[in-house]
């Protein structure tokens, strides 16, 4: 299976999917509330702690960030060179140096801080995202769709798509072998060569998908898909006591945050 649900018994695993999504929203609000990196850092560290408690594989998750590195650097630079007057606090308006003559493109303290904030924000959100996906079995999401009264087709498509991934992947390997034994060599030269090279793999995949879809549609009807308007669901997600407590706590924290920001004007730059 491609999407690894980590089957464990941690507190977060035990939570209802809806609770987790509320938590995620709360987090999103908090990180966008404050401009100052330290506040976001606090949030980020909390999330990281939760992730650790849920046994999130950090190496793997952060590994996926490597391709994003240039982006991250650019984020720092571009936000670094923001106009001084954007900032409330005088300290942040101080310009460290100018990139261009005549006082253009000044690197401001506030700019640097904003850059940090953005990176930390991104980091926190990424950890939270993978935390939700990795601690929730896919069936919970599907049942969530049902609870949200989305048409059954919707959850059926998602579930079926996931079921077919291993099958399609096996086909992929078979097709690659078949073409390799016809002399297809992986290390083609040039990007054009590579594009040409994956047509003999992608096209049979498409053809097989169409055939499989035809059979699937027949199989669905053979098994009475859509026979009656309603349908029995064998498992149900349920809101437990711990979910109520957690949600209450989350809302509390968010309200507190809003008060700190707009009431006490904390965490501004």
């Amino acid at each position, binding site marked *: 299976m491609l999407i690894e649900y980590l089957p464990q018994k941690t507190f977060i695993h035990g939570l209802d999917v809806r609770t987790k999504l509320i938590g995620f929203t709360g987090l999103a609000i908090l990180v966008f509330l404050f401009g100052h990196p330290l506040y976001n850092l606090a949030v980020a560290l909390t999330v990281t702690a939760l992730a650790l408690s849920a046994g999130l594989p950090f190496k793997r998750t952060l590994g*996926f960030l490597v391709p994003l590195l240039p982006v991250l650097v650019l984020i720092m630079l571009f936000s670094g060179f923001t106009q001084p007057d954007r900032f409330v606090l005088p300290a942040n308006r101080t310009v460290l140096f100018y990139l261009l003559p005549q006082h253009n493109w000044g690197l401001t303290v506030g700019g640097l801080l904003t850059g940090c904030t953005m990176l930390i924000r991104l980091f926190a959100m990424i950890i939270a995202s993978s935390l939700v996906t990795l601690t929730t079995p896919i069936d919970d999401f599907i049942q969530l769709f049902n609870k949200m009264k989305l048409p059954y087709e919707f959850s059926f498509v*998602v579930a079926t798509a996931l079921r077919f991934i291993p099958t399609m992947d096996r086909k992929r390997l078979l097709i690659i072998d078949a073409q390799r034994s016809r002399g297809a060599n992986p290390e083609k030269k040039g990007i054009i060569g590579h594009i040409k090279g994956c047509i003999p793999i992608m096209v049979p995949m498409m053809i097989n998908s169409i055939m499989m879809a035809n059979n699937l549609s027949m199989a669905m009807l053979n098994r009475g898909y859509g026979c009656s308007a309603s349908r029995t669901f064998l498992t149900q997600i349920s809101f437990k006591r711990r979910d109520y407590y957690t949600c209450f706590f989350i809302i509390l924290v968010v309200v507190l945050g809003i008060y700190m920001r707009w009431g006490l004007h904390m965490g501004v730059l």
Partner: protein
Amino acid sequence: MNKAEVRKQGFDPANVKRISIIAVFIALSAVGSLIKIPSPVGTIGLDSAPGYFVALAFSGPQGAAVIAAGHLLTSAIVGFPLTIPIHLFIAAQMALWALTFRWINNKFGIIAAVVAAAVLNGVVSSFTMVLIGGIGAVIGVMPFLVVGSAINAVIAAAGCKLIKGSKLI
């Protein structure tokens, strides 16, 4: 229940056919993301090619569904590197691009469609990044997205051309 009612609930066989195509090709998107093409701007996965293909070979809405769900699935696999809300937003955009892709193909031909895909899914979608990383992030992802969507669109077009002659579509 009578036929009309059934149709209203989307349970008539024609709809079942549509659903099965969507489901299987979403799976293909996930698998396609494992087929990598190295490029100067980073390795490109073929995760949106199935969506564009379905848009061409079957129907715009189907293609939109496949490309959007495919994007969410493939980014879920890598733990939503651009965070869940952004990926949701991008998925919505891609659905729109798939529809446009088919429309332009019917109106101006496949070349135009591929170019449009590269511009829309490459340049326009990049600006989504403003939300999380300012203009820097936009510049950062743009080349990757342009090349990626161009390649995916090309492969979808090629596939469609090669399969047309068979009894399959």
